[in-house]
């Protein structure tokens, strides 16, 4: 009979809650409440990094308001609901239903509630893409108004009633405020730390000045950022994303496709002239649209999207709005983010929850009580997955004596830094065939065992190697997990 660590922990939490009272009990009850809830993924970053835009792209609908100013001022949590519903949660945890309009985007009326009294807003939305995960849009850091930024930090890092499981962190460039935040996040969130962040270089289209090759430029910047140890400590890799393009691609309309086609059929000179700058696009007499249409197109595509879209609709393979939509989606980089979220967060939901629960329990006196202590130890001794995360957390951004950078990366990969699926742990291209997995796993297992036994290995290195070997043994025992 296998030991189901997830349900063991659930019942342990329930019993521990009964055995305590006061603050500890409240904490445990909250933990139990959230234990089976969908993963909470926050989208965070500097002000105007494009958080709401990315949110919309991930949901595939324009919900969050996005415009040139600073628009997200209150933490907003989007969850899948049966119907459309907007609720304000105040600092004492009470819920107040709010009125809203569904125009271009969701427009929420605070109706006499002040921003400062609201802890966060919950939006129930009937969307398939919100099943199994909640997305949290947060106000930007580095806001001119310090309060607004503090709200995000508070929500994401303190003992909030709504702990976040993972964060998609948007950066526009390496910036000290980014690093401050990463540190704060890291510290306050250490309990489920290691795996929890995906780095995104946002507004990638603007980095190259909106030129057609802007995303290549962004790719190089992202690689460079990921090489910075300060970034590496929280996110192993950084993915460039053109959020606006992704959002528009996900919600592309037939009339917009038609507009791009009309632009494509303009004379070469007129077209390049009109696409030289936004002011030219808005005023050029050669463009066959009303000013309002031009403004809407700009707001939806941006200069980069217009230049790229106009070029793409000329090609045979993009002869419909659907085809163009999927091409733009592919070029926006959003698919990689989706994939990372699935591979690293969705696939680890149970482990993340068990880990968070262990961290909370370990700090409470109740864990020393005979009954609880025994069961806790039993869970702890079966929690290799959790220790993998602990180890990864501690390995982050440092070197290990006797381990080359390359070998260290292999170690981290084996421990599941890229996600727990077998192909990801083994560094194999997907899809993989069962035998390949077994062959590769045994080979790598031998390697780590040798390192563990080697007389010149330091105690730490031996320990790390044994941990990697254990991860591989587990993999060999149940290699049939799906690739990711």
């Amino acid at each position, binding site marked *: 009979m296998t030991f189901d660590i997830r349900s063991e922990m659930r019942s342990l939490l329930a019993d521990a809650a009964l055995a305590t009272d006061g603050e500890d009990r409240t904490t445990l009850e909250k933990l139990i409440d959230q234990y089976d809830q969908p993963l909470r993924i926050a989208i965070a970053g500097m*002000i*105007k990094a494009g958080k709401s835009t990315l949110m919309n792209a991930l949901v595939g609908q324009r919900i969050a308001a996005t*415009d*040139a*100013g*600073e628009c997200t001022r209150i933490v907003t949590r989007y969850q899948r609901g049966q119907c459309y519903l907007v609720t304000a949660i105040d600092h004492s945890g009470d819920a107040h239903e709010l009125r809203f309009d569904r125009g271009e985007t969701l427009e929420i009326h605070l109706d006499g509630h002040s921003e400062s009294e609201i802890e966060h807003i919950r939006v129930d939305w009937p969307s398939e893409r919100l099943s199994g995960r909640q997305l949290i849009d947060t106000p930007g850091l*580095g*806001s*001119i108004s310090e309060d607004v930024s503090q709200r995000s930090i508070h929500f994401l890092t303190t003992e909030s009633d709504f702990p976040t499981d993972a964060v998609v962190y948007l950066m*526009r*460039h390496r*910036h*000290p*405020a980014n*690093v401050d935040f990463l*540190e704060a996040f*890291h*510290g306050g969130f250490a309990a489920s730390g290691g795996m929890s962040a995906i780095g995104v270089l946002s507004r990638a289209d*603007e*980095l*190259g*000045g*909106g030129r057609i090759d802007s995303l290549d*430029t*962004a790719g*190089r*910047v992202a*690689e*460079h950022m990921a090489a910075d*140890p*300060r970034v590496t400590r929280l996110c192993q890799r950084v993915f460039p994303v053109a959020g606006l393009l992704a959002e528009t691609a996900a919600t592309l309309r037939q009339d917009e496709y038609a507009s791009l086609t009309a632009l494509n059929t303009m004379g070469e000179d007129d077209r390049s002239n009109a696409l*030289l*700058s*936004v*002011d*030219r696009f808005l005023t050029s007499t050669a463009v066959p649209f009303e000013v309002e249409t031009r*403004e809407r197109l700009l*707001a939806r595509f*941006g*200069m*980069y999207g217009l230049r790229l879209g106009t070029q793409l609709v000329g090609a045979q393979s993009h002869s419909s709005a659907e085809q163009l939509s999927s091409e733009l989606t592919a070029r926006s980089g959003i698919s990689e983010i989706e994939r990372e979220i699935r591979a690293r967060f969705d696939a680890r939901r149970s482990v993340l929850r068990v880990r968070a629960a262990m961290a909370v329990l*370990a700090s409470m006196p109740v*864990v*020393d009580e005979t009954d609880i202590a025994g069961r*806790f*130890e039993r869970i*702890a*001794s079966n*929690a290799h997955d959790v*220790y993998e995360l*602990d*180890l990864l957390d*501690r390995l982050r951004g*440092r*070197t*290990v*004596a006797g381990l080359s950078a390359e070998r260290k990366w292999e170690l981290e990969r084996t421990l599941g830094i890229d996600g727990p699926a077998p192909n990801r742990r083994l560094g194999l291209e997907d899809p993989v065939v069962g035998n390949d997995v077994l062959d590769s796993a045994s080979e790598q297992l031998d390697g780590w065992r040798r390192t563990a036994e080697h007389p010149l290995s330091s105690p*730490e290195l031996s*320990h790390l190697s044994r*941990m990697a070997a254990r991860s591989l043994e587990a993999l060999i025992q149940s290699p049939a997990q799906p690739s990711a």
Partner: protein
Amino acid sequence: MSETDQVASLAALTVKAATAYGRPDLAGIARRLETEARAPVARVAVAGDFKRGKSSFVNALLDTDLCTTDETVATTVPTVFRKGGDTSAVVIDVEDDGGETAHEVDPTDLRSVHLDPGRAQRIEIELDRALLGLGIEIVDCPAAAGDGHPGRAATVATARESDAVFYVTGATQPMNRFEIDLVEAIARVCPQVTVVMTRIDIAPEWRRIRAIDTEALERRGLSTEIVPVASPLRLAALARGDRDLNAESGFARIVDLLRDGVAARSAGLHRTRAARTLGLISSELLEGLEHEHESLTSSEAAERELAEVTEARKAVEGLRQASARWQRLLAEGAQDLQADTDHRLSQLGRSILEEATEQIDTIDPGKDWETFEPWLREQMVERVEAVFNHVEEELLAIVERVSAEFGERSVAITDPTDRAGALDELEVTSEFDSDKMQVLGSGMTALRGSYSGLLMFGMLGSLFGFALLNPVTVALGLTVGGKALWDERSRLVKSRRAKATAGVRQFIDQAMGAVRAELRRTIRERQRTIRDAFLAYAEERVAAADASLLKARAAAQATAQERNRRRADVEAEIGRARELHRMITTQLGAES
């Protein structure tokens, strides 16, 4: 004749006149004005955060591709563009003895130039561009991010030494808090700041963003102009020779600002100061001649004059003695300043250490060092900068005290009542400083040297790092699970904190030692510069007094006939001096 040539030639004329009339002291001042008038260079710094289009802006402005816009290479030293013939580039390194050496590099491949991190000071590029020919040098500063970023201190230091600053931000997002902070800091040290908003070609809402930025700046009391630009449009316009497109790119306004604002203003500042000083010199020459004319009326008058001049000669002689009161004032002033600075520094070191220790007690140094270290460095740079500012102010006060010892004549040159006039008229505070430094020659340049110390300090901070705190000693017993893990952790954190505190103490000691040495050197050097300048001025004054003494003696011994002949000569001289004064007043618009 251009305006600067006009100033230069009038100054040259004044030099001749003053020499002819036996006033080498006034000739010396006029000669320095002439030299300045011939080479007025306005320095314009271009600053900004990462990825705001700063290098593209400089490239488009100068129609070049020399600035590295490569996304992955962050320039770590300033790049200076100057007028030259063929395009060339040199890297300036600082040597151990404090001197500078230059070595030539390939200007078309700057990104692969190796910069020695401890030594490389700046890259200097010569370009043949009419814009630079206006008498402007453009300094592309390394990117400056938020608090604690070394680029920030370097940017503020460069701004302080510049006549104008272009702060570059992007039109795709409003300025963030760090940017507004930095503009505010720059505006404090350099009054002529313009915000350049790039990328309006791809930002549909740039007008709104500009309004948001304007409001954010106004809330800090900054009425900085924001100029919207599109670098690609400027390059396209230059390629096609398209005037309209150039105007559309926004660079026309930038060039106007450089030409009419910066270059003309800088020349204008110099002109106003030169006009005032030359006016004073010529009227003083005139007064001297009239005085001589007066003394030639009778032998009694001549005797009286001789007595006066002899007395004046004695007084002036005192000025060049080592025992002169001004020498003592200067030496004591510098000594007091030295002691005061040492005191401030040790206090500063203590208070930083206290605050740092407090901070360390709340963090885990093994993890949080990357954020702690910049904080520490920022704290130090900020406070050390304040000490440097204090030293500058005190030195200026000393100069004022010393120049008061030189009596009314030199006060006429550094007249405090003139300052308000200068301020109201010119609305530029830096002028105030250069006015006071007049006796020392080219005002601001005397001030500029000392800030290399601050820049050096900015780099020093990054040298130390925190190698001793590498958290290799992380716990091994990770699999123990449960509480043991937490206890072990907190024990380790404690030991790391202790190590960190010791490391920080050592770091502060070393840094403060370096700063102290740098400040000592600065004060000593500045004391020497001031002394030499005033000593030279004293010599000139003595020579002038000798000349008048000779004249007065000749007048006293002369016969009535000789006196009359001499009087006729002087009358003619007075006519010429009046003419010089009239030229200066009418051509340069100086007040009499």
